[in-house]
């Protein structure tokens, strides 16, 4: 027979297995930093184009790069969320 006490201890023992890992893998952190840098650059280019210090060509280039970077980030995020939902749907 399972008593509440035993269930509690079993849960306590199983907790480390389901706890989230410490921090993100190095690759993911780097990719996020790269993405933030690309977005920062497009901000700078847009502001520069407004004040006339950046050429239109540069602005178009950074926008195209930021667009692809954003699409990549969104695609990867969608995949991660999909994988997470797949785990949630797993029969226990």
């Amino acid at each position, binding site marked *: 027979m399972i008593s509440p006490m035993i269930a509690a201890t079993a849960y306590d023992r199983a907790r480390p297995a389901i706890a989230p890992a410490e921090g993100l893998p190095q690759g993911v952190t780097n990719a996020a930093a790269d993405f933030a840098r690309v977005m920062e650059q497009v901000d700078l280019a847009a502001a520069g184009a407004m004040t006339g210090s950046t050429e239109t060509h540069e602005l178009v280039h950074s926008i*195209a790069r930021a667009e*692809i970077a954003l699409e990549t980030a969104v695609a990867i995020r969608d995949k991660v969320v999909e994988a997470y939902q797949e785990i949630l749907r797993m029969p226990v």
Partner: protein
Amino acid sequence: MTDPLSATELAISGMKSQAVRLRHISENIANADTPGYRRKLVAFHQQVEFGRATGAVTAGPTRLDRRELPRIHDPSHPLADDQGYYAGSNVDLIVEIADAKEAGRSYEANLRIFEQSRQMGSALLDLIRR
């Protein structure tokens, strides 16, 4: 790693160079009637970074056309010499217009490459999006 967007950088360099070229052409056309004006020429160079060619193009320094200036007969002109001649500009409008067309076409070609490369990068991402 080959960035799907590395071609856009080169296309942008081509567009920039053609824009510089068109600027010089418009200077030439604007000064077609300026006495003593020499036609400006722009030469393109391969861009070199740390001793290696990057594949991009840059507009080099401006040179002046060494062709002789035409001597125009007009004794009433303030710059006319004793014989009534003064030096005109050596700009040929037909050559300039043809050059402008060529610059425009080249710009368009670079634009197409830019668009193509962007589409390719985006199509690659479509693979994992589904």
